[in-house]
């Protein structure tokens, strides 16, 4: 009897739970599916469809009074999660509070942040978009991703809204200017799928070398490629002197799987100094220059170094975001590497140079050097374009495009940028006698997870402080715990003989949609396999992987770019 009662109880409990599951399932299923089909599409079209006919003032007055909504609106904003050791919560800290408060006071908009892992941002935002759960304001470095979604009808065309509400978006228009606002405007259809953030700093990649090792071996700072190579060989041959019992861990030149980035100074130095705009543009889909004619010879040099034991053997095995290599650099096993111009200064006490000082000794330090001359005798390197940085777009699931634009306006205000970058005096910065802002190490909520808080100032990348003169004065003081002189040196080297990319706006290149990820993965495969090939196999490995890249969509892009160039610029080799 007891058994029977028990089994009846169990069975009915199960049925009940099933019914409960079923009903919640039934309840959520339509909600999950329909936004794409029904509710969102009109929301996306509404502003575009309604507003163009009406004059700006009328359209705005219907929704906004003094820039404020009558009823509180809600928006979600993407924020990068860098997973820093001991960083602040990216969704909830001193800076998010400032933004939330400001947005509510000025526009009656409630802001929620949604974190996305920085190093896999494209993957993650793709997944969120596909799941219809993307934040209202999305930001990415990859325009092809935006374009792919736009072609599916998943992105809001901002062209009309930004004109209609120009009066309410003065900060945004002033800061970004026509250049960045309309950077992605299609020359034929006039669509604007994304607004381009502005780069306040253009420095890109610099080579770093262990100064204390140079001193120990009595070497001078290298100034040519040959001297750099000789230095690496000296590091390798003197591993015992430099590292003692850790000699087997010596890595003279370190790079990651992303060779195109981590050897950029070398690759660029091989490029023809007289390369035409046309040539560069046609092969310019990939910013790692893999299809540029000169790149193969640059990689041949790396291949020689790899086979001579000058590079880390395991570099390919660690993926994006892995800290193994950084840990090696911090532990003091690495002699030289190339990376972002401020890489060794980032993250205050956890910066590479601060770690070296702690782990190795007072004099252990990475200094920036400039030694890769091109055939014209210049230390050419690519800079960032001042425009065309992070792409900000609204997915069609965003039913508050106006509130979202007001958000962009708010964070483009000089005061907002200044607060987000500099924080509070005494907490995150001090003001020096010269008036320059010196960033100091912050704790807890005030920690900036990204340098200059660029993850929050999505329309502004780099030191600005709301004032260009102040920014220039303060640049060298932007890194807590870092030697301002070294920062200044790195800045100068990064800008020396810099090449500024040009915007070739010929509208959509349809071949580029949907292949970005595949081709970047293949590009890394070309680089990695070519670097580790035996010297005898180098040519065949490079050629076979490159052929695979081209046949997987690379060639189609090159052809379409060539066609578009001819259509817009005819036979000209240079941009007008």
């Amino acid at each position: 009897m007891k058994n029977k009662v028990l089994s009846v109880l169990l069975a009915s409990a199960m049925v009940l739970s099933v019914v409960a599951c079923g009903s919640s399932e039934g309840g959520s299923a339509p909600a999950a599916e329909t936004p794409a089909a029904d509710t969102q599409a009109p929301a996306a079209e509404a502003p575009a469809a309604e507003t163009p006919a009406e004059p700006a003032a009328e359209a705005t007055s219907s929704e906004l009074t003094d820039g404020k909504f009558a009823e509180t609106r809600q928006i979600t904003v993407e924020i990068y999660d860098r997973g820093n050791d001991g960083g602040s919560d990216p969704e909830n800290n001193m800076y998010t509070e400032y933004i939330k408060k400001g947005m509510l006071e000025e526009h009656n908009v409630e802001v929620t942040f949604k974190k996305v892992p920085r190093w896999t941002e494209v993957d993650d935002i793709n997944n969120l978009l596909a799941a219809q759960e993307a934040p209202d304001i999305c930001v990415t470095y990859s325009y092809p991703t935006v374009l792919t979604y736009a072609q599916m009808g998943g992105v809001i065309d901002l062209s009309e809204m930004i004109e209609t509400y120009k009066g309410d978006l003065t900060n945004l228009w002033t800061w970004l200017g026509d250049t960045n606002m309309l950077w992605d405007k299609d020359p034929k259809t006039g669509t604007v799928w994304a607004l381009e953030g502005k780069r306040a700093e253009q420095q890109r990649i610099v080579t770093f070398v262990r100064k204390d090792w140079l001193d120990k071996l009595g070497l001078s700072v290298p100034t040519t490629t040959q001297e750099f190579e000789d230095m690496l060989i000296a590091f390798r041959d003197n591993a015992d002197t430099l590292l003692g019992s850790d000699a087997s861990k010596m890595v003279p030149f370190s790079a990651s799987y992303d060779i195109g980035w981590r050897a950029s100074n070398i690759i660029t130095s091989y490029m023809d100094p007289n390369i035409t705009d046309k040539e560069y543009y046609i092969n310019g889909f990939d910013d790692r220059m893999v299809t540029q004619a000169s790149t193969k010879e640059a990689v041949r040099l790396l291949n020689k170094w790899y086979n001579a034991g000058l590079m880390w053997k395991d570099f390919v095995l660690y993926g994006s975001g892995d800290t193994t290599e950084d840990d090696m650099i911090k532990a003091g096993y690495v002699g030289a590497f190339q990376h972002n111009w401020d890489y060794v200064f980032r993250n205050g006490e956890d910066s590479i140079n601060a770690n070296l000082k702690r782990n190795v000794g007072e004099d252990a330090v990475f200094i920036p050097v400039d030694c890769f001359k091109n055939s014209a005798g210049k230390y050419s390197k690519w800079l960032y374009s001042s425009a065309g940085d992070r792409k900000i777009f609204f997915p069609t699931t965003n039913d508050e495009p106006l509130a979202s634009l007001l958000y962009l306006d708010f964070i483009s205000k000089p005061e907002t940028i200044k607060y987000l970058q500099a924080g509070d005096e005494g907490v995150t910065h001090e003001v020096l006698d010269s008036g320059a802002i010196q960033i100091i190490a912050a704790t807890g909520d005030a920690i900036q997870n990204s340098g200059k808080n660029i993850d929050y100032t999505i329309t502004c990348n780099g030191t600005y402080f709301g004032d260009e003169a102040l920014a220039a004065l303060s640049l060298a003081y932007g890194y807590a715990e870092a030697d301002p002189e070294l920062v200044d040196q790195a800045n100068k080297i990064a800008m020396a003989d810099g090449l500024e990319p040009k915007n070739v706006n010929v509208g959509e290149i349809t071949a580029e949609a949907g292949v970005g990820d595949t081709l970047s993965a293949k590009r890394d495969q070309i680089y990695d396999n070519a670097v580790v090939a035996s010297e005898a196999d180098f040519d065949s490995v490079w050629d076979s992987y490159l052929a695979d890249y081209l046949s997987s969509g690379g060639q189609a892009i090159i052809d379409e770019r060539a066609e578009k160039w001819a259509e817009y610029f005819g036979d000209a080799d240079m941009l007008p």
Partner: protein
Amino acid sequence: MGKKSQTSSGNSKSFGVYMKRYWQLYAMLFLPLLYLTIFKYAPMVYVQIAFKKYSLVKSIWELPLADNHGFEFFIKAFKNNDFKYALRNTLTLNLLDLLFGFPAPIIFALILNELCFKHYKKVVQTIAYMPHFLSWVIIYSLALQLLAPTDGLVNMVISKMGFDPIPFLNDGKHWIGSYIGFGIWQNFGWGSIVYLAAIAGINPELYEAASVDGAGRFRKMWHITLPGIKPTIVVLLIMSLGNILGGGFDRPFAFQNNLVMRVADVIATFVYRVGIKGLQFSLTTAVGLFQSVVGIFFLLMANFISRKLGERGIW
């Protein structure tokens, strides 16, 4: 279940009596059935994406048919070099898994069955299960710590002995070996449970009779244990064959690196990269559908052959 369904197929009166008696069991079965319906059958509606031009914002019923009578994406897939590599690699890796990975738990179960010390047997068994509970991400981290060319423990020992390091993870051929090896390591203990259960079900009198007849260990193993677990082996083999184009995602994904992609990219990772990351949903749904159809074909064939050979098959 077989017996029950025979009785239930009787007349309606006995069906009512039967249901009254066993309704709890059916109520309990309801949950798994619901799970299958919601998570396995309902999503099948979306198979039509393979034949249509996908768009995020349209309902799937409104999507326009793809070119070539809807077969555009199948044609595209078979023109895609990466898909061909992925297909080849999936087959190679799964066949090697089958060749080396399938007999491993059987052999292990047979060996374990011969152990006399009960406690020792339990300990060995438990240790052998353990790796099954590790995720592939963790296993790959272990693999890196052990097998990386310069920092890996194994290669450090090899280098100290004066040999060149072995590129376990960064050379195609060696990588396949490591991949299969870790697969076997992770699964043989867990896989042996089913066989041990089958062995436990063999009538002990058979062994006693064989001993009386003078059969040694190997004779008994060959003539009693193996035939005793043959039906289990066949059923599991059929299921493995049905999965010949399938296979998990996390194992190859965790083990891949840029140097071995030509042998390591399988259909699951191809679909993830091109479909989800590259947003080509139609193309990869077509690939997935193709994969399933081939899987069913293998399953049916294996079942057919096993029935021809006088085994029970899976239904």
